[in-house]
């Protein structure tokens, strides 16, 4: 591939990622400004937009690619994800349970 072609592809990659990221940022800010959703639906919508935006950043900015990224990097990323779920989930579970017992609610 010629240098010019590669340059164009790399820049386009960043611009596509940026466009998607802007869209995925505007959605939660617009939902917040508009109001009207119940708390549960609001939380779900914001969380979903955030997760998708993180994936967009990983794919287009950090160039994580299931085929081309070295396996050990993917392994570290996956393990980090597992640790996060365990630690955030575990913290919320245990502390929530403790609060419920102490408040008697």
């Amino acid at each position, binding site marked *: 591939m010629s240098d010019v072609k590669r340059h164009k592809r790399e820049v386009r990659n960043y611009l596509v990622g940026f466009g998607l990221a802007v869209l995925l940022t505007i959605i939660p800010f617009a939902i917040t400004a508009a109001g009207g959703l119940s708390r549960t639906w*609001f939380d779900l919508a914001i969380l979903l937009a955030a997760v998708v935006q*993180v994936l967009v*950043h990983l794919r287009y*900015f*950090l160039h994580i690619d299931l085929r081309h990224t070295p396996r050990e990097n993917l392994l570290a990323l996956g393990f980090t994800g597992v*640790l996060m779920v365990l630690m955030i989930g575990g913290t919320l579970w245990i502390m929530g349970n403790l609060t419920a017992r102490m408040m008697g609610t």
Partner: protein
Amino acid sequence: MSEVDAKTLEESEERAYGFWLFLMSDAILFSLLFATYAIMVTATDNGPDRTEIFGYWRTAANTALLLSSSLTMGLASIAICETRKSASFQWIFVTMILALAFLVLEIQEFAGLIAQGAGPDRSGFLSAYFTLVGTHGAHVIVGLIWMAVLCLHLALRPIGPEIQSITERLTMFWHLVGIVWIGIYSLVYLPGLYQ
């Protein structure tokens, strides 16, 4: 590829992998700060709660600044990869301005909160908030210093594998800082601003 080039390439790949592991541990650190914040968010001790202290437009401006800086950092890394020096300087300079503007807004916000008696010592909620957002801000400061050092490298030497390898790690670092901010505006600011 000559033997020297192959060795440099291998070394730079090893460094990138080591740095990736550091970034993953950094991400775990932030996830624990997020968990702490989630637990502490109701612990307001009759002080201000999350619906009272955040500004919508300040959050939007900070988000826009950091997101744009992710793009300009990426363009800087492409320019450095292609050994185009003036474009490299230009994009790193823009990235630094955006990061600096972000920091100014954040320091203003922190100073305003402390002045109105909503400092980190006011309640568990505010301690957790300042720790989480402050740790992210500290990462932005580190990134800024790193960019300044990279500018020095660029000014003093021709662009070679060494500078490209530094740039690769700086870019990874900066994108992680951007990803953490997605969590901060989604889980801290917007839920507080939603009425």
